[in-house]
């Protein structure tokens, strides 16, 4: 019913600066993303986009307000339970790719499956399929840092899909790529959204990308406008 949905209610994140004053990176954000939606979140630097994504992805906890992932109020969960949600329900794509440099492409894609405790055989099957999905079936044995930026980000997307989450969160996924590689990445995300009905939230500066998304949420000074 609520699979793949993201809902926030009066979501705020404040930081103490100095003794008394508080700074709100995010203030009273109400947002609803349905299953299978492709949403872009845009806004200038420091507007609170990443803060919003961190809260949705259970990396951070709200000061006030609530985040529901697939109907579960994640703000109330323990650190261990939130780690489990990240493991099982969310795929994360970073601007810096953040692959493990000492590992091969194959091992990077396999890593979340190991964290989940999947068996060797199933891991092997899934990694093979995922490398095919992102078109890098021949690069499995390459070390992460032997790959180009675009290839690294494709491996990162394969990794985000490792545990078959319904939700993919991407923070500036094309920010460190040239135009053509960036386009490939966006096309891959669009493909995953259409073919596999993944709920995808992309943070981006790039108006070109935003226009490819069905819905654009704009944030300024911590509020949706």
């Amino acid at each position, binding site marked *: 019913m609520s699979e793949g949905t993201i809902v926030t209610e009066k979501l705020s994140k404040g930081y103490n600066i100095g003794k008394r004053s508080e700074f709100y990176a995010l203030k009273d954000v109400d947002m609803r993303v349905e299953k299978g939606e492709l949403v872009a979140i845009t806004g200038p630097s420091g507007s609170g986009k990443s803060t919003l994504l961190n809260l949705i992805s259970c990396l951070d906890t709200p000061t006030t307000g609530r985040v529901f992932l697939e109907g579960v109020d994640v703000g109330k969960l323990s650190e261990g339970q939130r780690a489990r949600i990240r*493991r099982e329900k969310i795929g994360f794509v970073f601007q810096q790719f953040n692959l493990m440099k000492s590992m091969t492409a194959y091992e990077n894609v396999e890593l979340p499956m190991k964290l989940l405790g999947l068996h060797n055989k199933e891991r092997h099957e899934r990694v093979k399929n995922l490398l095919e999905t992102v078109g890098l079936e021949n690069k499995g044995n390459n070390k992460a840092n032997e790959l180009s930026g675009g290839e690294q980000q494709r491996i990162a997307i394969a990794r985000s899909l490792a545990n078959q989450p319904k939700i993919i969160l991407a923070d500036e996924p094309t920010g460190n790529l040239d135009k053509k590689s960036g386009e490939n990445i966006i096309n891959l995300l669009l493909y995953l959204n259409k073919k596999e009905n993944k709920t995808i939230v992309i943070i981006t500066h790039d108006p070109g990308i935003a226009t490819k998304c069905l819905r654009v949420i704009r944030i300024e000074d911590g509020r949706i406008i």
Partner: protein
Amino acid sequence: MLELALKNILRYKVRSLLTIAGIGIGIGLIIALGSIGAGISLEAGKVAKDFAGVIHVTSLESNISQETIEKIKKIGGVQYVIAIPAYYSSGANSDPEAAGSSTQTVFSFNAIDPKDQDYVVKKEVKAKRGRKLIESDNGEEVALVGSDAAKYYHLGLGGSMPYYSLSYEGDTPIETEYDFTVVGIIEATGDYKTDSLILVPLSTMQTIEPDQAITEVIVGATDIKNVEKVTADINKKVAGVSASDDIGSIRESEKYLGQINQAIMFLGIISALSGALGLANTMVMSVMERRREIGVLKALGAANSTVLAQVMEESAILSILGWVLGFGLGWIPKLFVLRYAHFDPIITPDLLMITFGLALTIGIFAGIYPAWKAAKLDPVEVLKYE
């Protein structure tokens, strides 16, 4: 996630090797020193055992009579009593042809009751050729000789061993030669005490040298535990003699040896602990350098316990590899340095188990703080900055 821990170790090979060497030297030192300590203790124990059961009884008068000896034999806990006056045959020893070299080796005639011949060196002597002394040899000029003594005097079975007795008629020295027939040659043992023995019957020597008094006898106790009691009993029950044993000083020296071993082990442990600090330092550095990776791991959903375990594993692996190196280094004294020493270092299973336990403990303790730091890393903070 053992794989990841191994990968991290292999990623920084030089640093890992240096850290392993730090632990390995410490552990190696403990194994080496421990094995030397065990070797010395064993050897000292053997030597002590030779002396521990022995009581020296000296005469408070001019000599110890046969009657007194019989009295001592009747005391409970006494295994044997040997009166061993040493007779040096001046003639035989100074014969340059027989000596064959410039080094003067002194062999003494041990005059004993044939019954006691196995107690002289505190182990049973075996005749390689001929026979041992028997009761009927009393009063006969016969000898049972050790292999070195036989070689030195060029003696074979049935050969003749001269003994020169010196007496004075007024101021004129008179030398009388007695020839002892070799009735047996003792099997070579490699032990100097046995191989240089010359055993002759006590009663024979007493006839040849009637003036030589027995002033001291050696008493053996059946059990080392009784030595002090037997000593006390001799002093109490037998008049005219004073008995003393070495058990007190042996216990004292065992105590000192124990203390020296403890001090040595303390040094080894200090050295291992400095290795542990090196390991802790490596692990702190390793976690600092991998902050981002750890952040990513946590962002991907690794539980704190997973991150903790991974760092601890890495620390424990380094430490155990250190133990393996130490195990190798620990053999150096045994195989090379002390190859020709008078004792053999002993690497006991206990020593290996204790050091392995120590290495594992070091690995865990050195890993705790860095692992805790890693587990507590906030992925938001770490991933925010490039």
